[in-house]
Structure formats: structure tokens, C-alpha cells
């Protein structure tokens, strides 16, 4: 019996590296022989820097824009991401995946979609946002409410400008603290929700951000009457395998890597370790 290892990464090439903010870079990654990753928005890969280790990273590019590559937006935070940040175009990284359950886009078609990313939480949501925008006709309203701590922490400024400029997208951006370069809205993300009128039964909300943010964003979304089964969150956990074995990502009886990383609020509201 020759067995194939579930732990073997595929060697892929860094095709492009772009500084996004002081802490985040956008990596465009090409798999061998131009083959596609074949991911759904919201899924993640296990990314290896050989000799350093492996870490779970959500995919930020939309499947609708794959062009034989995919993108990861990565904050320099630990050993693996630190080493990745030191790598150059042409360098090789290992990729396993895609893994996990992503956002069920089929349940969003024909509905209003509210995106509420906070900070780096835009990275996984951008995959879905761009997929939705590429099939814009299949959705009703598209609302993007994005908050970051400071203006220099906003990700994907060019795309944000495009979303703000589009007539068929309601995109509002806020920062917790402004500066002399910022003439936009100032305040935490929840201050954007007030003026947004919502048809709750026909609305799906998608949020991702730091744990503290969820509590307040969820209050807003639930306050607008959006059903718990129509609110989606993407959770972050430590992972060493990505396939339900290593135990690190366990959230009570759920496995973030297999049951998630995307959950509905209904799925996790009684799971104490979730938020």
C-alpha cells in the first residue's frame, strides 16, 4: 500500500509581493503547472515556509479572479508569517488545502448582503466580496461597512475607493482614530450601522474581525432583526494540521478547521469558547 500523506505541501511560487500596510503584505501565489487552487471564498490554506513551519491563512482572492494564482493577505505576527514577510518574488512556499467550510454563496443569491469586516478581517471577506461583485446581478443590495483602528491600517485602499465609487455598492468606512490624512468617518465600526435600513428576512450578514469586535457587531446585526442563521462569521484558531487531527483548533466540540472556519451565529451562539 502506498499511502499519500495528508501533510505533504505542494511547492508554489511567490509571483508577486506587495506591501499593503506597515504590517500586512499581499502575496500572489502560483501553484505548479498553472493549476488552480479551486477554493471557495472563506476557505484557508496551510502555508509552509520550509524550515520555519506551517500556519493557517485565509484566502483573500476571489475564485472568480483566480487566473492560475491566488492571494493571501498576511500580517507579520509570528514565526511563519515573519519568515514569509522576508521572502521575495520567485521564492517558494508550501501550500496544503484549501481546507474548511467557506461562505455558502448560494444561500446569499437574491438577497441583500451586508459585509462587516474589522481590520484584518477584511482579508477573508474580500474573497467573498469580489465574488459577489463579479456576479453582481445575482444579489440585491451590497453593503460594506469596514472599520479599522487607524487610516494607515486600512487594507486594499484602491479597492475600497472603487467600492465607494460604485453606484451599486453602499460602502462606508470608518477608523477608530483619525489623523490629518483622514477626512472620512471616525468612530468604531458599530457607528456605521445606525443609518443602514435593513430588510432583515432578506438580508445575509457576513462579519470577520478580532474577537472583541464580534460582540458589538453581532448586537447591531441582531438588533436589526437579521436571523441568527443568516449571520456568518469566520473564526481564527491555531492549527497544526487543517484536517481535524491535531486538536489545536477545537472550539468545544467543534473543529474550526473542518466545521468552520465559517460558522453561522446560530451554530456558535451556545458554544462558549467560540467568541
Amino acid at each position: 500500500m502506498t499511502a499519500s500523506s495528508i501533510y505533504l505541501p505542494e511547492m508554489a511560487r511567490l509571483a508577486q509581493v506587495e506591501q499593503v500596510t506597515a504590517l500586512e503584505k499581499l502575496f500572489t501565489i502560483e501553484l505548479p503547472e498553472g493549476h488552480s487552487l479551486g477554493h471557495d471564498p472563506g476557505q484557508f490554506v496551510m502555508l509552509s515556509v520550509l524550515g520555519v513551519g506551517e500556519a493557517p491563512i485565509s484566502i483573500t482572492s476571489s475564485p472568480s479572479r483566480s487566473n492560475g494564482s491566488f492571494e493571501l493577505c498576511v500580517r507579520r505576527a509570528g514565526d511563519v508569517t515573519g519568515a514569509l514577510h522576508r521572502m521575495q518574488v520567485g521564492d517558494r512556499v508550501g501550500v496544503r488545502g484549501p481546507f474548511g467550510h467557506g461562505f455558502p454563496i448560494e444561500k446569499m443569491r437574491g438577497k441583500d448582503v451586508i459585509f462587516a469586516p474589522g481590520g484584518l478581517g477584511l482579508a477573508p471577506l474580500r474573497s467573498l466580496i469580489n465574488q459577489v461583485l463579479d456576479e453582481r446581478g445575482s444579489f440585491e443590495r451590497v453593503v460594506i461597512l469596514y472599520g479599522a483602528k487607524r487610516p494607515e491600517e486600512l487594507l486594499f485602499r484602491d479597492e475600497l475607493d472603487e467600492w465607494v465609487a460604485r453606484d451599486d455598492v453602499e460602502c462606508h468606512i470608518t477608523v477608530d482614530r483619525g489623523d490629518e490624512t483622514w477626512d472620512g468617518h471616525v468612530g468604531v465600526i458599530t457607528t456605521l450601522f445606525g443609518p443602514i435600513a435593513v430588510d432583515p428576512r432578506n438580508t445575509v450578514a457576513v462579519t470577520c474581525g478580532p474577537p472583541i469586535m464580534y460582540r458589538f457587531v453581532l448586537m447591531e446585526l441582531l438588533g436589526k432583526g437579521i436571523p441568527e442563521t443568516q449571520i456568518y462569521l469566520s473564526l481564527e484558531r491555531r492549527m497544526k494540521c487543517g484536517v481535524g487531527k491535531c486538536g489545536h483548533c477545537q472550539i468545544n466540540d467543534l473543529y474550526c478547521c473542518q466545521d468552520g472556519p465559517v460558522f453561522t451565529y446560530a451554530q456558535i451562539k451556545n458554544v462558549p469558547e467560540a467568541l
Partner: protein
Amino acid sequence: MSLKILDKGAVAPLVNALIADYQVVGPQAKGPQFAFGPLSDPAELRLDYNTTILPPSKAVLQPSYERLATFRLGDDPAVEPVVESVPTVLLGVHTCDLHAIQVLDKVFSQDHPDANYLEQRAQTLIVSLECLRPCDENSFCKDMGTLTADEGYDLHLTDIGDAYTVHVGTERGEALLEKYAQTQLATEANVRRLNEALSAKWPHFKHRLEFDAAELPALLATAYDHPLWDELGERCLACGSCTNVCPTCYCFNVVDEVNMALTEGERLRTWDSCQLDEFALVAGGESFRQARSARQRHRFMRKGKYIYDKVGELGCVGCGRCIRTCLAHINIVDGFNTIHGTA
């Protein structure tokens, strides 16, 4: 399948014959205790052992360091999978540990089959051993339904005095026996002595759990806010010994090790523990199970509920190792009883 008789005098020749063709792993003395390890001489085998520090699965199926891949660094980095397996006979496995291996088999074959575990498992023949006396006051196999076994072994031995009865569990076991062992067919007298030994053993084993273990998942489902967790959290040193010695704890870390010249390296799987501080820590600095009380609760939940939810078997086999090893005298049976009494 058939019942054979292996005279005690025939054990050493059997082990000798096996050593020529297999890695033979069995219980050996280690100071005042016992440990599973590769045998180089039949005299090292101690089938009279009470319990071992670590479970047999961790000597063979889940080594503390296991290679998952090798890689080359430099301009053209490359990675190769490593799936290592050695033909092995695991001798003298008590039935609690046999049940634990069945839990592991399910975990590692479910969803994404883990070739590293499964290849070694496929290359491993298990010769289990019926316990006729309790190993000590900490085991509670009788409560957990693991005091005997009717599957999961290739061969199963029961001590009937001057010989072992050998129950053949698989064709592989039968072939092994035929090729390597001097056995006879069991006589009626042998069968009678086996039955006597088996019925005599049960009264020696005490019940320690005050309720039916089948109730554990349901019991724990409503025990999330029980005051026990805070009490255990106060005592727990978060050393991870309980999970290290547990026969159904399989959580792991993966680390890369690089040679001195920085030209090549290995990706290794190592044991990890949900009791350790950084186990659930994420890059952003958030730790999702920071309190020791929450980590102990997680262990109890894994043993009595979560693993059951995942594979349909309880994650505790009653071996008592976590109780023996705990420096803070945390006792999982007392814990379960406390929850049952007041939850």
C-alpha cells in the same frame, strides 16, 4: 476462531523467533515501573507487569517524534513526504489500551485518513493480554467496559497457570501463530480452566465510577459551568503529564527542524497537550483557553464527551494513568463522580 494453548515455556522461543523478522515491542521493567519498548531478548519481556508509564500506542503508533516530511532548502527548495512503518509485533497489550487503540484507529482513519498513523497500524500485529488482577487502585476499567475485549487484537492471551490460552482474532494472527509459535489445540480441560480464570477475575476489580459510563456524554453536556472546573484549575500545574500518558490523547504539534548547514531539514510531529499555555494561542495574541480551569474542563470533556461525539467511543478507557501521574492529585474518576453527584 480457534483456541490454542501456548505453554509458558514456549513464550521465549516465540519472542526469539519473532525478533528475527519483526520489531517486537513489549512491557519491560523500568526502575520500579514498567514501560513498553523494543525487545532484544525474551528475558526482557514482563508479561506480569501491572501497568506501564506510557500506553503501548505511544511506543509504536504515536512516537513522541515522528517524521512527516523531509525538505531541501536553498534556491530550489523541495519537500518529500515521509510515511515510515516498521513491521511490528506489539506484545502484552492490556485490554484498556486495546480499546484505546480502537479509538485512535477511528480518529486517524476518519475524514482525511492519516497515512503516517495508518501505515504503521497496518504493519502492527497486536497480541493482547487478559488482565486477571487490577493493576492498582487507580484503574477503573471495569466501569469503562474495557476489562475485556472481543475484538481489536490479532491474538489474545489469557494466563491459565502454566500456559496461556491464545484466542485467534484475525487471519494475520493465525498465520503468525502458525509460523512462529509452538502451540496445541485447547483441550476441554484447558477451556474449563480458561472459563474459571475469567469468571474468577471479575470480583477482584472494583467499581469506582458511581454511575454508568454510558451516561458520561449526557452528564458532561450539562456540566459546563460546574464549580469543579475552578477547583481543578486552582490545583492544576498545567504540566501536561495527564495528556502525555493518556492512551487516547493524540493531539500534536508540528515543527520544522533544520540541519546545522541550513541546507535541509525535517518536519516532525510531536506530542502536544491542551493543558499547555500556548496550545490554543493564535497569532493575534488571543488565547481561547487561557484559564487552567478551562483547560482541565476541556480534558474532561474530551475524555467523556467530545471524542465520543467525534468517533462514537468514549475517550477514557479507565487505565488510571492520568491519576497516577498527576502531581496535583487530580483524579478523573473523582471528577466524574463529583459532577454526577451535584450537576
